[in-house]
């Protein structure tokens, strides 16, 4: 199965965009721009995924990334009190060491990638990869998804516990009977 010439060209263009935007994340002078650059990088990779026939996963990659960037923007406005568009920044430490490390890792990975005798393709992709994925998820890889559900539960609980300084007893009283909740800021969001 092939992706054709056009697919190949677009694939490589996307690859270039992904890497350049990735690099830009740490070159631009504001956090907002960095966020956009990261989003573009992700969307490019998502598109690559799409090109390689994994439409479902490509789409969720793109969607997820957009959501995440939105959250990040909210976060910055909420907590960092900065105008995301204009704030100049240069917040690096150990720049040189980090660069050397990253370059070293890249060199090592590249060498490995180029020298390794990669095996041939084993089999062909399913005609309907999404359906195959679905079957795998409720079949051989079911346990993975079960655990992922537990992971998501844990994430919800953990993230809330960490992020919220005020718990239910602060709002509703020790017997949970106070109505309306005692919030410094009215509106029912617990702030």
């Amino acid at each position, binding site marked *: 199965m092939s992706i054709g010439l056009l697919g190949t060209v677009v694939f490589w263009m996307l690859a270039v965009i992904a890497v350049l935007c990735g690099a830009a994340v740490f070159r631009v002078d504001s956090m907002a721009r*960095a966020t956009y650059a990261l989003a573009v990088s992700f969307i490019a990779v998502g598109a690559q995924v799409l090109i390689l026939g*994994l439409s479902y996963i490509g789409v969720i990659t793109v969607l*997820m990334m957009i959501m995440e960037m939105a959250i990040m923007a909210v*976060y910055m406005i909420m907590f960092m009190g900065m105008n995301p568009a204009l704030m100049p920044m240069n917040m690096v*430490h150990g720049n040189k060491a980090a660069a050397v490390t*990253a370059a070293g890792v890249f060199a090592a990975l590249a060498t490995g990638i*180029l020298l390794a005798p990669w095996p041939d*393709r084993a089999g062909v992709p399913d005609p309907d990869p999404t359906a195959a994925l679905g079957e*795998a998820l409720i079949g051989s890889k079911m346990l993975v998804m079960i655990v992922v559900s537990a992971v998501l539960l844990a994430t919800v609980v953990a993230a809330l516990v*960490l992020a919220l300084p005020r718990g239910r007893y602060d709002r509703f009283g020790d017997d949970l009977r106070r109505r309306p909740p005692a919030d410094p800021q009215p509106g029912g969001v617990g702030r």
Partner: protein
Amino acid sequence: MTVQLVLLVAAALFSVGLYGALSQQVVVMVMMGLELMINGVILAAVACYWFLTPTPTAQVVLLVVIAAMTVEMAMGFAVATLLHRSRNSDMTDMATDLSG
């Protein structure tokens, strides 16, 4: 177009992300670096799927990677919030009470 070339791109993304993760001071920026690394991993996973093992398992791998990314980022925001609230700072360098 070969697996090597795609993996090289992935490696590039991964390395750029690593650079960011190691060099940035602001927690959110570090997280961006981590995300870029995951981006590279996603690309690598796709490459593996396409060129090496076009099986459903490889797709599940991708799914798990994306789930991991999401979950880690959620926790990252939570931790950053906590740090911000408790220390009024979100700079990694300013949190140096614990050392030795």
